[in-house]
């Protein structure tokens, strides 16, 4: 998701810093953080007190995250394509697949949430879908962290003649 343009090694750090502070990336990061924290709060509260605090915010931010991520991924892929046999590309692919899983299951749960709020509607129980969404969220955080870390480590090594 954050591989360097054209796969160049040793790209000047200011380019990476510029990209990481671009409004689209910052928006994506903030939404991801809000969704991650909100998801953990929901997980804990749902299980412990059978309540779902902040669920409406989680749904709306999830929709915004899906849209912002789609734009980000489109622009990112047009910059880093084609796929290369490199570890950071593999991690980026895993991160984007996890993001697709979590967004798809999240939107499905969001539809269930909207239906549930219609007058007279019952409460849909979807434990497997919720579990897939939870695991998908964990994988997103894992592979986004690993991908960004791998790219930054590669930058560091490229800028260090000892390979460090």
């Amino acid at each position: 998701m954050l591989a360097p343009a054209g796969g160049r090694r040793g790209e000047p750090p200011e380019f990476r810093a510029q990209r990481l502070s671009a409004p689209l990336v910052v928006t994506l990061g903030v939404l991801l953080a809000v969704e991650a924290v909100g998801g953990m709060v929901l997980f804990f509260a749902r299980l412990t007190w059978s309540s779902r605090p902040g669920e409406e915010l989680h749904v709306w931010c999830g929709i915004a995250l899906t849209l912002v991520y789609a734009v980000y991924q489109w622009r990112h892929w047009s910059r880093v394509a084609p796929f290369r046999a490199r570890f950071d590309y593999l991690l980026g692919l895993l991160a984007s697949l996890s993001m697709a899983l979590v967004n798809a299951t999240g939107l499905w749960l969001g539809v269930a949430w909207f239906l549930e709020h219609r007058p007279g509607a019952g409460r849909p129980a979807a434990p497997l879908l919720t579990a897939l969404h939870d695991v998908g969220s964990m994988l997103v955080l894992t592979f986004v962290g690993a991908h960004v870390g791998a790219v930054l480590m590669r930058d560091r090594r490229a800028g260090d003649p000892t390979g460090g």
Partner: protein
Amino acid sequence: MSAAPAFSVFSAVSELFVTAGVFTIVRRNWTRRTFPLGAFLAVALFEAFVNVLYMSHRAAQASTGAEPLPAGLKVSFAAHGLLSLLAYLVFVVLGIFAYQDQKAGRYYFRERPALTWSFLAVWVVSVGSGEALFAVRYLL
């Protein structure tokens, strides 16, 4: 006490093998031996798509209220769930860093003993709390 579902037993036992795998991966890196990428991938995939998925599914089932559970047990389940997610995330990220560093002749875990021991402690607490919850729920 209620009878343990077969998959809960499988998950509780397999978690011990997963832990052995995690310690083996760290130990091999610590002793400057080849990074076991195959074992790392197998452990990471198995843990995500079998154990964590099952744990999340059980948590989601429990939250429907179909199974009445004591409040303390619910809080412990939720805390264990969050800790497991954190432990998994840290395991995969550090494992990937260790693999990358080792290709450059560096030994990530050995060069970061505080981080390594902290991670192993979190992992042990995470697995230990899961085994304890299994025992409290089904064996005691």
